């Protein structure tokens, strides 16, 4: 497998969807290519950073207020 082949299939590799033969080729390539090894590690790290820090957060008070507003709209829609 060449660098461009792996780059094209990186998401499938990370998803575990390459199939046994291609996966083995990818692993063999990664063992000998420091560039692709770095790309893979950085891609994993980007996904981890996004997961750990990328969410827009709702505060506790806002949660309560939002729920009360939705429940109130639900009740009033039933009596309309």
């Amino acid at each position: 497998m060449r660098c461009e082949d792996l780059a094209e299939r990186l998401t499938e590799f990370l998803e575990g969807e390459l199939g046994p033969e291609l996966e083995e080729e990818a692993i063999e390539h990664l063992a000998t290519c420091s560039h692709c090894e770095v790309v893979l590690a950085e891609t994993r790290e980007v996904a981890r950073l996004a997961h750990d820090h990328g969410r827009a957060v709702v505060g506790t008070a806002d949660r309560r207020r939002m729920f009360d507003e939705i429940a109130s709209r639900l009740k009033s829609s039933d009596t309309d």
Partner: protein
Amino acid sequence: MTPMSDEQMDALIRRLEELFVAHLDAVFNVAHRVLWNRSDAEDVVQNSFLKAVARLDQLRDDGRIRPWLLQIAYRESIAVLRKRREIPVDPMTMPDGATPDRGPAELAVGADLARTLAAALERMNPDERMAVVLRDIEELPMREVAMVIGIGISAAKMRVSRGRAALRSMLDKELADAM
């Protein structure tokens, strides 16, 4: 239509609360990452949960409730976006990164990273951003990412791939620090 009895309404409110507690964060995140405005995202959250409760009988498989809700929220958000001429940026909407199990030092680092991530996400192509939000932040399987956005699985993979590559190039410094 005949109004519900008090018992029926109580049962519906309890169901709403279950959905709300389990899925608010994901629904808000999707809305906010499309609209970048807290007030508009809250409106989408309200409308999405109300629509979901009204359509609960259409949901055959409870296991699919998360992508189903996110699909409603995504469509609502896009509808709001289409009504706008331009997207205002609300600087007060940056996530605070606070969770109860973090100490003060870690919290400060987390808040910095959260701001950096939010700024990078905001600069991304919106289609690629939503694919990354759904796959990496909300951890939906690829087929559900495709379902929520309304595209094929191959296209979803392509967007996730391009989105991660774009984030990689924007987060050079953070990656160097983390690795």
